[in-house]
């Protein structure tokens, strides 16, 4: 933006150059946070003030949060289910993906680019074209309303994501590390286990966060593969909250539920922002 300001008088130009980016920053921050702020504010209103458009939730109330966790909603159980599904997807993905990523980053073999291209391509398939046949298969083998019915299809997007991220991280590590280990008498497998894995821990951790967030956000698979409340993930349960009268939507409790689902992610983002940004851009900017 600041780039296309025409050359004005020198003094004015310098002042503009200093203040315009700062103004831009304020606009960006507002743009990103205002809707989120509105979710938090709406969550902390009294249900009777729900339609108030005041910028602050006064009088302050946590009634919406109490309503969300009321036994009829099954929201607590939904959070646990989300944790089980997203956690399993993350762990499985890391175990399987780490070996592949290291292979792609370090070994030189024929068709390497092809393999990498295939792995990236698989993440581009529309989820629905995987869900339809898998749904039919899972009906046949009685997997509907099971955790594995949500975990297995989620690997289709989580695994390519993790392999891609980890490959970028492994590539950033100097090859001399393993060479030194092997000079000291390690086999390549030992070099990987004893030298690379500990050193790659930050990259693995970042990949774990990104994969977890992606799996935690998943909706279509979780929606398709379940119809029992006790097994549904938090996302599905929140989207299907019903109000007291059936027709109207309980926005207050939905916003409160949204805050509960989102807060762990926002905290993770605030704590690990540097790493997450590095991880997200590692694949895209090479």
């Amino acid at each position: 933006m600041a780039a296309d300001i025409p050359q004005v008088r020198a003094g004015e130009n310098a002042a503009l150059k200093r203040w315009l980016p700062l103004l831009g920053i304020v606009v960006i921050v507002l743009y990103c946070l205002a809707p989120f702020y509105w979710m938090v504010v709406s969550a902390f209103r009294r249900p009777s003030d729900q339609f108030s458009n005041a910028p602050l939730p006064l009088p302050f109330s946590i009634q919406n949060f109490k309503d969300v966790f009321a036994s009829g909603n099954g929201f607590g159980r939904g959070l646990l289910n989300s944790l089980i599904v997203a956690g399993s997807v993350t762990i499985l993905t890391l175990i399987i993906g780490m070996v592949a990523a290291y292979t792609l980053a370090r070994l030189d073999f024929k068709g390497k680019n092809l393999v990498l291209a295939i792995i990236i391509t698989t993440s581009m398939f529309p989820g629905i074209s995987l869900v339809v046949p898998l749904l039919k298969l899972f009906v046949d083998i009685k997997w509907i309303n099971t955790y594995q019915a949500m975990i297995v299809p989620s690997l289709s997007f989580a695994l390519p994501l993790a392999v891609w991220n980890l490959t970028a991280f492994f590539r950033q590590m100097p090859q001399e590390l393993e060479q030194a280990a092997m000079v000291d008498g390690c086999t390549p497998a030992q070099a990987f286990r004893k030298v690379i894995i500990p050193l790659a821990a930050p990259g693995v951790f970042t990949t774990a966060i990104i994969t977890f967030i992606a799996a935690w956000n998943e909706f279509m698979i979780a929606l398709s593969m379940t119809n029992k409340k006790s097994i549904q993930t938090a996302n599905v349960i929140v989207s299907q909250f019903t109000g007291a009268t059936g027709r109207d939507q309980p926005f207050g409790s939905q916003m409160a539920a949204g805050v509960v689902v989102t807060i762990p992610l926002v905290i993770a983002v605030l704590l690990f922002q540097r790493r997450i940004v590095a991880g997200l851009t590692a694949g895209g900017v090479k």
Partner: protein
Amino acid sequence: MTATTPVTAPATEPKRKQRFDEGTGRLAATLLSPTLLVLGVVVLFPIISALRESLFTSGQHLDANGFVVKGETFVGLQNYADIFRGETGTRFWNAFYNTTFFTVVCVVLETVLGVAMALIMHKAFKGRGIVRASILVPWAIPTVISALLWKWIFQADGVANALLGTQILWSTEGWQSKLSVVLADTWKTAPFIGLLVLAGLQTIPAEVYEAAKVDGANAWKTFTRITMPLVKPALLVAVLFRILDTLRIFDLPFVLVGPHKDSVETLSMLAYDEAFNTRFGPAAAYATVLFVYIALVAYLFVKILGADVIGEARAKKPGGGKGGGRWKRSNAVKASASAAVTVSAASGSGRNI
């Protein structure tokens, strides 16, 4: 260690090749097999079985003698033919139009906004940490939750109407529901594109800008002749992924506006609706059409604009690319420009944004 890497790297190159090349083919195949196996099961198998499924109809129907037949019947290309004609044809073309509309409008808006954000963030020296954190917030909020949030904002007596002083019924049929989906999608992903472009901006060494300044280039010329060409590879990949993502858009219109709404029904929603009603044959046919559409768009995008998804691997082997000559050159420019930066990033701690 960081400083010595670039110096020693060329010298060790041939030695490394010798050591790692012997028998690596088989080793690589063994190590890659778990990943490829899993992807085969969760991606390749469903794709193939969707193709097969799309040639059948399932469920109860009457045969020629009036008996109830249960199970699958082979119908050939019937499901595909049905997609394009009659009432289902209208619904399909509407969904096809909506999907394309969302993709074009959202991606264009997100790209423009994202680039603008990246330029601002690149210029600003103060408050980068805050921006980076706030930019990640829309990205981290699950799409379903953000759809509910926007539904709440776009409520008839919600804050959007209050701020705008309007009485628009946003989540009813019509242009306004399309607009609400576009706004919600842009909010979530424009900052993300900004983030990727910013990372691309930071790989451009300051010397390039200094040289441009010495040559007397003005701000606009610097932007079009230096910034954009050097950021283009990163931007193209981001845009490609956004296009593919928006073509399969499901959660946002499904939750924000709802199923069975003509104004926002996308191909994914259509296929989901058929599968939900256990019409697996037509559902698979819709999913396959969407899949072919996405593959075609991705192919054309890579062919025409030369998005280089596995750029680094190709940069290592300069002769091995299949892109056009023009593209390879600009890639080489990028490679040499970013070489200095990669070195400092090679310590494994990730880039500093």
